[in-house]
């Protein structure tokens, strides 16, 4: 992962859940979407450890589905507890995002 920080790891978990909440996606689709959103410098592979971690915690689950392009793919869905987790992270993020970025901008 080009972005080494622990911070990004946590943020990435939330981003992946947010994308999955919107619509069930498979791996490649997910990495395309994250890049389109404009997250910098994330290599394609970064999402897989994230997906595994989220599955282990029960926040998302995988299911085989036929894809639009034909072959069966593993689509990821957000679970109930994933939804709760995402709500919570979003609320925490909301609280800290503006003050922190104001503060960091000032010290530049």
């Amino acid at each position, binding site marked *: 992962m080009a972005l080494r920080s622990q911070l990004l790891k946590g943020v990435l978990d939330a981003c992946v859940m947010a994308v999955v909440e919107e619509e069930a996606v498979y791996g490649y689709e997910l*990495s395309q979407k994250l890049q389109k959103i404009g997250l910098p410098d994330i290599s394609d*592979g970064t999402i897989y*450890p994230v997906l*595994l971690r989220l599955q282990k915690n029960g926040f998302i689950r995988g299911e085989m589905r036929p894809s639009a392009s034909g072959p069966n793919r*593993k689509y990821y869905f957000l679970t109930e507890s994933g939804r709760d987790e995402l709500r919570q992270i979003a609320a925490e993020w909301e609280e800290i995002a503006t003050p922190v970025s104001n503060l960091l901008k000032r010290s530049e």
Partner: protein
Amino acid sequence: MRTAATLIEENNGKRELLNDENLALYEEFLLYIRTDLRVDEQAGEEVLMDLLDHLLESQADGKSGKELFGDRPQDYADEVIEALPREKKRNAAVFIISQLLSLAGWFSIAYGVVYILLSFFTEVDTAISLGNILLLLTTVSFVAFIAVCLIFKMVRSTLFRPKKSRTMEYVKAGAFGAAAFGIIMLLAWLIPEFGPIIQLEWWLYVLTGLVLMAAAKLLSRI
């Protein structure tokens, strides 16, 4: 749900669609995951399939596989392994027991077949001592287990390295295999006869072997 066995089979076929560069990258990654005995096999095969699908799709989009595995593929593989669930103790135990049963099965069948073949030409002493045979089986499994661990470790140490330095490693792995086999032969010769003597018809050995192998097969389906 797809089982690990079907995933492996599907993977073997799909992998051939990769171009040479991507195939080389992918197979190193695959070996690294599969030779890590801590990893839950089912989850490992699932993520391998996810990555293979991803690679095929990015290949179709004209992207390099390096974008998937990053600049430090081994670190990436370690990160994936870290996130994968561990193999459950119960699964590992079932696997080991089924391997032992099938080893004993092969042993028994081979004994029966060799016995009947030899008896065409010469008088054969079919008496075997139970103690000897059980001790031999135990040590063979132990030596085989150590050899597999060592060879896996060696294979892993060659991955993600330039190809040139590998020949030596392969020679080493071969030597280890040969040494393990040598030790087994030596033990077969050294272990004394003890315990109750059994004497069976050749076909009973074959039958026992088949039953053991069937049991092993059944067990591995659990």
